[in-house]
């Protein structure tokens, strides 16, 4: 039951036990069918487990939507140490699903991670959790301790003879460490800077060894797929976007929070019916549908199914399905400025277009917001945004440009109004 509100139309798989403190404990989780899937998986060969996940067409929930089973199949049975990394760095403005999964259902996550480890023959799982998540970290740590004590993690997982260690690793304050290779560097005790790919993690990952990395939500779905089968998962959602997804709804909504729906659920319905529409009787101006890194949609663009492929057709991305909803009073320029400042603050600083570009965008945005912008600034923003896109090691740079470019395309009048305001002031001086 998604938290802190529920809706009859929801299909609750991952979130079935949100808001249920009993479900946190190992005993409670087992009562609810926990760790059955792990037992089932251990009875199969690693390749068979991967095959099931592949057949489910599960796509990664960390933002990029990469097919999970395919990713697992990249790892070779080569006798080298393998690692599973759980990406629990959740820092993208708008996203707050992994925290809920960790704090309500830590064993669900562990079960998924252990199945993943078995499937790729990894001996060690690192759960990389952002350092600010101290409370969820305590819960997950407790769950790990319980799992070790019960022989679910450690030297002989459920009596199978397989060794899988689990370590919780806390980050220390850096959004970029959510990027998979930056996460690996950070885990290794380095500055959290993304690596150049290739080599890809399946060949050269954590500590230089073959590694699989998945988002918390991705791994939380895995036990359900193992238990109920790939066909079952594929029967939910759309052809290209299978299964359910947590929708993280924030902003000017009456009912905010996480809701679990099959992919393909209508965005308008989600916002207006499930979430009760806009607060305080206002109307909707814009939605960022997939976390701050994706282009905005205007009010008239929302009648689309929330599936990866369909949101892409509409000119944005489903990303993490983290929807930030803005009402008609929203100062778009201010909010874009705030997002750009975020990216400037979080750029790791390796790539010049990103290091310099994010800071430059922020300064221009601040000037425009203060009524000191010119029309030339708008053209410059577009040009800089383009120069920052596709030219860097990771896509943080592209992400910083996205809100600027999309808001300029859709809400240019708000920029112009601020510039218009500047003119008389300037003339008066």
């Amino acid at each position: 039951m998604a938290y802190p509100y529920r809706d009859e139309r929801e299909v609750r798989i991952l979130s079935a036990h949100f808001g249920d403190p009993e479900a946190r404990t190992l005993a409670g989780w087992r009562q609810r069918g926990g760790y059955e899937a792990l037992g089932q998986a251990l009875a199969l060969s690693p390749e068979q487990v991967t095959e099931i996940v592949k057949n489910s067409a599960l796509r990664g929930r960390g933002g990029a939507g990469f097919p999970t089973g395919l990713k697992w199949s990249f790892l070779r049975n080569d006798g080298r140490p393998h690692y599973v990394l759980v990406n629990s760095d959740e820092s993208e403005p708008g996203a707050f699903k992994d925290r809920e999964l960790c704090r309500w259902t830590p064993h669900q996550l562990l079960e998924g991670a252990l199945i993943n480890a078995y499937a790729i023959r990894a001996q060690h799982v690192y759960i990389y959790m952002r350092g600010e998540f101290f409370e969820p970290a305590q819960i997950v740590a407790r769950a790990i301790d319980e799992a070790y004590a019960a022989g679910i993690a450690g030297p002989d997982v459920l009596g199978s003879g397989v060794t899988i260690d689990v370590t919780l690793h806390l980050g220390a304050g850096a959004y970029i460490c959510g990027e998979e290779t930056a996460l690996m560097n950070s885990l290794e005790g380095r500055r959290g800077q993304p690596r150049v790919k290739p080599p890809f993690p399946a060949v050269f990952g954590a500590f230089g060894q073959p590694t699989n990395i998945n988002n918390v939500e991705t791994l939380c779905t895995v036990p359900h797929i193992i238990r109920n089968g790939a066909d079952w998962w594929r029967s939910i959602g759309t052809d290209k976007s299978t299964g359910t997804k947590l929708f993280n709804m924030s902003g000017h909504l009456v009912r905010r929070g996480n809701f679990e729906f099959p992919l393909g659920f209508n965005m308008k319905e989600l916002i207006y019916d499930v979430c009760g529409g806009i607060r305080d009787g206002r109307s909707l101006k814009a939605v960022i549908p997939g976390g701050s890194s994706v282009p905005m949609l205007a009010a008239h663009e929302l009648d689309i199914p929330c599936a990866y492929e369909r949101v892409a057709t509409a000119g944005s991305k489903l990303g993490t399905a983290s929807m930030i909803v803005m009402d008609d009073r929203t100062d778009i320029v201010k909010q874009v400025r705030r997002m750009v400042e975020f990216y400037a603050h979080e750029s790791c600083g390796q790539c010049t277009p990103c290091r310099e570009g994010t800071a430059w965008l922020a300064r221009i945005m601040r000037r425009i917001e203060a009524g000191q912008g010119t029309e030339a600034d708008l053209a410059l923003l577009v040009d800089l945004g383009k120069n920052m896109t596709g030219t860097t090691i990771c896509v943080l740079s592209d992400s910083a440009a996205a809100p600027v470019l999309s808001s300029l395309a859709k809400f240019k009048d708000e920029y112009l109004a601020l510039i218009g305001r500047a003119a008389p002031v300037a003339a008066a001086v």
Partner: protein
Amino acid sequence: MAEERTPLQGGNPGWAGETGEYGHLTEADVRGTTYVGKRPPEGTSPGASCSYPYQVGGGRPDAPLFEGPYRERLDKILSRYPNRQGALLPVLALAQEIRGHLSPESMAEVAAALGLAPAYVRGVATFYTMYHKRPVGEHLVQVCTNVACNLCGADEVLRAFLAATGTEPGQISADGQYTVIEAECLGACGFPTAVQVNDRYFENVSPEAVPAILERLAQEAAARSSAAARQGS
């Protein structure tokens, strides 16, 4: 703009966010404190899986690093990584837990403990925002002002904290109790405004809730120090 706000539907006692339709949940239910149990003041969870730091005030800048129970925690951390460098982030966090911030001396000691170059450790420590390079107040109040919270009045919440503590962002209040800073998204966007105080989140914080939160923090601090005094006597 504060005039017509839809009130919270699940009520918000100013601790752990809107509970919506789960109004029966207590703070301990939401925070999971009953499940987690109590950690010993200098220790970690009993299991060997990790050693996460306390993020609480009370660090002593001149305390020795890695002695007694902290040595055990250091060893436990080291046992979880294939090399010593891997332990750098948790060990820096441990040093900060002990001393309250990471001075150059602390960085050098961590470097020595892990066999790393001090300049390297400095490079890593300065990359991450949760390592304090300067002392902070007993309570580090981090107010998320990023977009999802910002839409819902985070700037006002930040101002309210600054006004109530009489500080500028990043300053330590005169009584040494508070440092208020602006934070990036805390991953609690559905519960705006999200505020982190040391190791706890306070969610759905409105400007009006700020005095009550500070009052609670003060009371807890007083309780802690009288408990410590009892122990000392």
